[in-house]
């Protein structure tokens, strides 16, 4: 499939020894079980019972096993084929809590099935809709997801009772859990940081037991079904409500785009010569994501999505073999047959849940910010991003006012995530009006024209919302080109620069009358360079080729024409 990079010991197609595969698979499965905290949060927020919690934990384990298997498959158009573990995703949490509060857990699960089906359909048209959802729009959605989690997370973290009463024991448990998770992620060297959440969680359980925050009597019932038994999940009472369709479709969209980003990361990790995303592969991955999410709803848990934490784990351990993913799904499935695991997880102390959510919210907020600043921002985009976040925050602040809205409108406006995402999409489309996708510049054959050209691409890049690194490559290629044209006195008269941008490509054409550009691909040897320093100018063509994805040197109507093509 691809060339294995230097840091990777077992590449995607490699078959590691069985013992190694099993050890790595257990490691992935244990990390996946830690994130059961999200569906537990859903049960807790909707006032579910202990039986609900146990059922949701078992359903989550089965959903993660099934989703991971599909994602690693890469057969008959299904799955990316990379080691990408599926988790019950925090992306689905805010809307699922909203649905559960409106119509019980059955409504949350029923709507998740529809969201999954939407993702399946979306996967077929992913490439066509890419321009509607640029990274800064997705960034706004991810930031709002993180912000939406702050309220429930902090309430649990401090053990808030009533308005001004804080439970010091609960606070101590949460503080120990979070302090360990954060400090182990920052300071230690080596692989220990990969287990920071797991270690923090275990310490949290211990602290909760010591301080009496956890129900000790409940722990005695952990072994009541024995060590091994068939998994038991209650049949969910699936429901559907039109009013919730928009928030769930928005969630499915963000989950699909998040999965797409994760799969592109897998492609980069596994290919030393990675240049651009393999969108057919991404589409197969998003299809598996959709089927996995629909299956999660059907089983009775939160929608599943690809876990970036597991991708980081596979990259850090240098083991990205598909087989590890397949065996992880088998290990997870086996876990579902061990009832004490589900029972123990379902009794996760509330302050521990709070600490994990604070940790996750911090990551979500900063990931969203990273997405936003990955594009160049001009005034239009600043208002799109800032305005949408303000709308989302207003939805949190004006709860009482929003409750008076009709149910169909309340479901959208009452969800900070949904309203901010919709606002970002609408403003992105609105602000496109008046932004020309074509631009041109006429410069004199002087070295100072390089400064003018760099500024031109800076401002156009911001207006287009282009990727910063692509604009940097364009500026480098055109600077190199102009420098050679000027210094070798190739142009007679002005130089014309034409640029055309869409979400997928950026094409630049440089035209001038005069002598042809030195387009040779041959580079002078080190000895030749030391013997004649002017030899470097002859390799300008090679330097331009390394910046652009495609370069064509041509003559059109007696004018020299250099076409530079950049993938975006």
């Amino acid at each position, binding site marked *: 499939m691809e060339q294995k990079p230097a840091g990777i010991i077992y590449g995607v197609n490699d078959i590691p020894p069985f013992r190694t595969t099993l050890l790595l698979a257990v490691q992935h499965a244990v990390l996946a079980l830690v994130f059961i905290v999200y569906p537990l949060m859903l049960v807790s927020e909707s006032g579910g019972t202990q039986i609900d919690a146990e059922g949701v934990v078992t359903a989550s384990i089965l959903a993660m096993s099934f989703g991971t298997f599909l994602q690693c498959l890469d057969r008959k158009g299904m799955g990316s084929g990379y080691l990408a573990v599926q988790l019950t995703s925090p992306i689905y949490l805010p809307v699922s809590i909203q649905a559960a509060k409106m119509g019980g857990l059955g409504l949350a699960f029923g709507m998740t099935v529809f969201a999954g089906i939407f993702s399946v359909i979306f996967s077929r048209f992913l490439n066509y809709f890419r321009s509607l959802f640029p990274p800064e729009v997705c960034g706004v959605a991810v930031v709002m997801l993180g912000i939406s989690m702050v309220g429930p997370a902090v309430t649990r973290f401090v053990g808030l009772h009533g308005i001004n009463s804080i439970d010091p024991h609960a606070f101590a448990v949460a503080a120990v859990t979070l302090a360990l998770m954060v400090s182990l992620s920052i300071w230690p060297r080596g692989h220990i940081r990969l287990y920071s959440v797991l270690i923090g969680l275990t310490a949290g359980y211990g602290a909760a037991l010591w301080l009496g925050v956890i129900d000790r009597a409940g722990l005695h019932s952990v072994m009541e079904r024995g060590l091994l038994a068939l998994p038991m999940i209650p049949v969910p009472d699936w429901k559907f409500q039109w009013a919730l369709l928009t928030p769930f479709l928005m969630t499915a969209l963000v989950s699909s785009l998040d999965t797409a980003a994760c799969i592109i990361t897998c492609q980069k990790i596994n290919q030393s010569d990675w240049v651009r995303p393999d969108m057919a592969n991404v589409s197969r991955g998003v299809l598996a994501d959709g089927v996995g999410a629909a299956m999660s709803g059907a089983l009775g848990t939160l929608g599943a999505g690809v876990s970036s934490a597991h991708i980081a784990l596979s990259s850090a351990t240098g083991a990205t073999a598909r087989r590890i993913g397949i065996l992880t799904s088998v290990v997870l499935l086996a876990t579902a047959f061990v009832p004490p695991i589900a029972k123990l997880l379902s009794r996760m102390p509330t302050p521990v849940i709070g600490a994990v959510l604070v940790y996750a919210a911090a990551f979500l907020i900063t990931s969203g910010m990273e997405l936003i600043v990955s594009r160049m921002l001009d005034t239009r985009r600043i208002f799109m991003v800032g305005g949408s976040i303000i709308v989302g925050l207003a939805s949190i602040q004006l709860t009482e006012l929003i409750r008076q809205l009709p149910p169909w409108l309340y479901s959208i406006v009452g969800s900070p995530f949904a309203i901010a995402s919709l606002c970002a999409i609408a403003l992105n489309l609105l602000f496109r009006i008046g932004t020309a996708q074509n631009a041109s510049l006429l410069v004199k054959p002087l070295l100072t024209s390089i400064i003018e050209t*760099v500024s031109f691409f800076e401002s156009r890049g911001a207006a287009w919302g282009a990727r910063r690194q692509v604009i940097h490559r364009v500026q480098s290629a055109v*600077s*190199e080109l102009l*420098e050679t044209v000027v210094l070798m006195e190739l142009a007679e008269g002005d130089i014309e620069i034409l640029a055309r941008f869409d979400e997928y490509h950026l094409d630049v054409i440089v035209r001038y009358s005069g002598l042809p550009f030195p387009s040779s691909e041959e580079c002078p040897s080190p000895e030749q360079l030391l013997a004649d320093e*002017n030899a470097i100018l002859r390799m300008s063509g090679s330097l331009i080729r390394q910046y652009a994805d495609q370069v064509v040197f041509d003559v059109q109507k007696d004018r020299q024409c250099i076409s530079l093509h950049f993938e975006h």
Partner: protein
Amino acid sequence: MSLTMKIENKMPGCHVVKFIGRLDGTTYAECEAKINPLLIPATRDIMFDMTNLDYISSMGLRIIITTRKFIEGNGGRVHMMNMQPQIEKVFKIANMLEGMTIFANIKEADDYFAVMQKKVLDSLR
């Protein structure tokens, strides 16, 4: 869109040249003017600190070649420190990394200069 240069004399005959910004057709003349005084037989080592160099064009490379040609021709050495990936790629394409010492960070470079200084002091005893 400009180039700032800081030149530090580490010890007699050893200079660190720090680039900040772009080294291209618009800035090479200014750069050349600052480097030329260093191109004397007494100069044994020149280290280019590339940490904050954002872009280098073929004219920028030409200055590095000229410096290398002079210093190595007089038995000295030219070093690089902390090259950004995009800059390193340009040097690779130009076949200019061969025969040059590249330090990953300031500590490696300082260690090198400390050894050099010790050698000089030992030779004076």
